[in-house]
């Protein structure tokens, strides 16, 4: 049965003008969430080249077992983030986690990844990259396969090595795909919630360093029941996405080559 006996939605809200927005302006948690979200987005964007490398490897002529590799790289994409987040929370455990164990083998004393406010967002970003590599690689592979083979043949005749071909032919011709991937990755990263929710305990001190905008939205709206404030956060998120996407479209003239 429904748990609410409230008469109507309208009765539950009072007009407060811009109060929710002015509250957010001075709010330390909001400022922190904005910083954490931007850092997360930057880290995940820094992982995009990995997908290009994997796509380029999958595109090597004569490679066998393409579909096997593609399946393996795609596994994290099709696994629900709730399961992924739980698994990595365990792997990242400071005391008994496998990652610190492996780091220990090469003499590195690993941090408390998901317990330390200065490190947590990096741990989450690693998982964010890990779970989107396959998706982006599929997009890049499609882009690579549309590059005409004779471009490479001509370059080979001119004596360009494979590395040179990659930087002079592949990357420039791939820029439209790269632009698409960068914009999509950025928009998705700005909305990250699941991984933070699953990897960081609700009472952990690490939350101050990993609370993202959507996490704050969830906390305000559905833990503290300040729905007006949460709605204001969502509007700010829309503004942030619009501004950053507009900047991307401005910048594209400088680096994206359309044929």
């Amino acid at each position, binding site marked *: 049965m429904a748990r609410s006996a409230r008469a109507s939605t309208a009765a539950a809200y009072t007009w407060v003008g811009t109060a929710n927005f002015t509250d957010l302006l001075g709010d330390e948690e909001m400022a922190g969430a904005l910083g954490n979200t931007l850092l997360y987005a930057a880290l995940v964007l820094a992982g995009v080249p990995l997908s290009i490398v994997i796509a380029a490897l999958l595109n090597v002529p004569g490679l066998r077992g393409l579909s096997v590799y593609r399946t393996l790289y795609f*596994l994290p994409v099709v696994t629900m983030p709730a399961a992924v987040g739980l698994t990595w929370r365990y792997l990242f455990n400071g005391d008994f986690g496998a990652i610190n164990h492996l780091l220990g083998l090469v003499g590195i004393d690993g941090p408390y990844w998901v317990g330390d406010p200065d490190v947590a967002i990096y741990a989450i970003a690693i998982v964010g990259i890990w779970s989107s590599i396959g998706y982006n690689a599929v997009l890049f592979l499609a882009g690579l396969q549309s590059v005409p083979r004779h471009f490479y043949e001509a370059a080979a005749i001119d004596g360009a090595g494979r590395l040179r071909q990659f930087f002079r032919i592949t990357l420039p011709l791939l820029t439209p795909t790269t632009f698409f991937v960068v914009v999509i990755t950025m928009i998705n990263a700005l909305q990250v919630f699941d991984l933070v929710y699953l990897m960081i305990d609700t009472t952990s001190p690490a939350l101050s360093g990993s609370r993202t905008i959507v996490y704050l939205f969830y906390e305000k709206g559905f833990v503290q029941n300040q729905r007006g404030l949460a709605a204001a956060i969502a509007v700010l998120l829309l503004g942030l996405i619009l501004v950053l996407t507009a900047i991307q479209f401005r910048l594209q003239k400088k680096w994206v080559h359309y044929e």
Partner: protein
Amino acid sequence: MNRPRTWPAYVALAAGALVMIAPFVWQIVVALQTLPDSLRVPPKFTPSWQWSNFAEVFRTVPLARQFLNTVVVIAAVTAGLLLLCSLAAFAFARLRFPGRGGIFTLFLAVLMVPGELFLIPRYEIMVDLGWLDTLQALIAPGVFGAFGTFLLRQFFLTLPRELDEAAQLEGANPLQIYWHIMLPLVRPGLLALGLLTVMWSWSSLLWPLVVNTDPEMMTLSAGLASLRGQFQTNFPILFAGAAVASLPVIVLFAVMQRHLIAGIAFTGSKG
């Protein structure tokens, strides 16, 4: 043309693939360990064949019920989305009506808007309808989307004009043209959108988490998230649940990967 050597590519790809699947293998191993084994330092990398973890997780949370909820919700969402989005996409691509350009621009604008912006109004609508803790609360908001309409419109646009004209001459009305002629021709698009929808609804967490708080009405994703609150650091039990929740979509993907990949590649080329 002499082929470049491929072995460095194999080595690099295999190393990467190891990083991709190691967490899954590790998850299964720990799901079969006892609690003390799972907390050992250094970690124990072999299972202790503690199959009762699976029984335990099914006993403490209504996992079977949540599984059923998830399947029902996904089936309803996917069927509804394919029907409604293809109807809208057909109208945008093949019919002429006043305001078409303007309405379509609005659709494109909605693509830019983060889902969180709709979350609170939708939540309040669910409250007013008395739909909290029901399956329809999970289904209704998902049965239509700007992205699906946009994607299918691109498919409808590729079909030749002569098809409509010929059908019109035969006396077919728009609905008949849509159903009998156009829809079968955009099957690759429907399949791609369907698979993407299944994948996304399977993963979706925030909305199910806020509208349904009764464990009996949760999806697997939300159920798994709430399991964390119950079992804290009892990772064998958590991972038994995680494995149950991960497997079906992995199997589905393994079977359908060709179509899903084609769909994703298509969004990249036309998006």
